[in-house]
């Protein structure tokens, strides 16, 4: 069966969204390989259900919610509780951000920091602080109450700030 013009347009939009979809998936999986698998699964599901997309709002929000649901199912299947397998943020000595490091090292440290933040914090932070979703939109995408969005967001910000300020204090 040949894809219709409408289907092709949808696919083109998906391709354009891939960097953002991968980034969102990273906040859920904190693992590049799992993130790519998750994005692929989400895109496949989005294409087969593209007739359900009403064109209102952001397409990525619709797919983000799909991605999050797929990941919850996957976690359930793996019988892994959310956040397990990662070391507590405060215990990680090597995650300090070196403000004076060269650009490449600094970027690598920042990336590592994001990948090791607890899933509940980094997803909320990405949606609200980086992509400008409202609290309500973030809550809908992640399937959590708005109050949880607010508390996770403030916790994420404080933890991120601690990473760089503690390093600065240690140097002085």
């Amino acid at each position: 069966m040949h894809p219709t013009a409408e289907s092709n347009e949808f696919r083109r939009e998906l391709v354009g969204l891939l960097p953002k979809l991968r980034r969102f998936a990273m906040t859920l999986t904190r693992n590049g390989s799992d993130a790519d698998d998750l994005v692929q699964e989400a895109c496949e599901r989005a294409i087969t259900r593209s007739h359900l997309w009403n064109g209102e709002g952001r397409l990525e929000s619709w797919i983000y919610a799909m991605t999050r649901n797929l990941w919850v199912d996957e976690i359930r299947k793996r019988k892994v509780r959310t956040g397990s397998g990662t070391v507590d943020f405060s215990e990680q000595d090597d995650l300090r951000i070196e403000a004076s490091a060269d650009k490449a090292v600094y970027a690598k440290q920042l990336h590592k920091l994001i990948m090791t933040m607890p899933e509940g914090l980094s997803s909320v932070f990405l949606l609200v602080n980086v992509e400008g979703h409202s609290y309500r939109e973030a809550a809908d995408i992640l399937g959590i109450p708005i109050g949880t969005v607010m508390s996770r967001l403030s916790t994420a910000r404080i933890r991120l700030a601690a990473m760089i300020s503690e390093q600065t204090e240690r140097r002085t």
Partner: protein
Amino acid sequence: MESTQGLPLEVRLSAYLDGQLSHAEANEIDGILAHDEKARTLFNRLKLGSDLGRKAFEDMLHEPVPLDLVRNIKLVSIDGGQDAGRPLPSEPPKEVASYGTSARLGAAGLVLLLAGGSAGYLLGAQHAAPAAPAQVAQSRSWLDDIADYHRIYARQTRHLAEVPAAESAHIADWLTAAVGVDFKIPDLTANRLSFQGARLLVAGGKPTAQLLYKDDDGEIFAVCFQRIDPALEKTELDDSIRDDLGLISWQAGTASFVVVGPSSDPALETIAQAVAQTI
């Protein structure tokens, strides 16, 4: 607007930072910040964390997207699974796979399908050896030749074309006579493609015209066509992939056409549509 009354100060300040508070609550926070130094320190830490995290996430957008993801988006059929419409001699049955395996299977879909085809050939060879070479020969089409040529010529930066674009009038006369297809060189500048020149190839055993284009990033695209028995009517655009190359082909009048370019380029079909309308 959300109410943060009764919530911890850092949560209220965080919501204030996002502009998610009502006018009355925002005024209240203004007052707290004006008189409470600890609150100001906490607010500055929240802002610092915001800026740091935003930078980290923005950098993540610049990471290269795996080509497999792009390809599989193009290959997923609308009714689920990978598009099975590729001309393969022996196709393994579809299986329902769980997440974690299905995604990897999808990424390796073409490889598995080709492996299935090869395995079918090898198994068949034990029982019906004479038929196998014919199957293999039939599985190659003029599009496979086009893809092979493209991989070679797209890398010839100094000798990309046999006849340069400056001789467009000659190219039209020459290839019309050699291939037996009347055509106009498509102007694809609206698609950010500049005409580079042309070559005469042999694809599927027939003389074939190859018109070469380059985009702003230096990627090479080609429009190829050859004469066929008259088609009853213009066919739909057919999208197929050969590893790193995407090919969109169709038939119209007395010619088969194909546009070839990087499979990762989502604009390939738009380019093919422009060619189909103007050539």
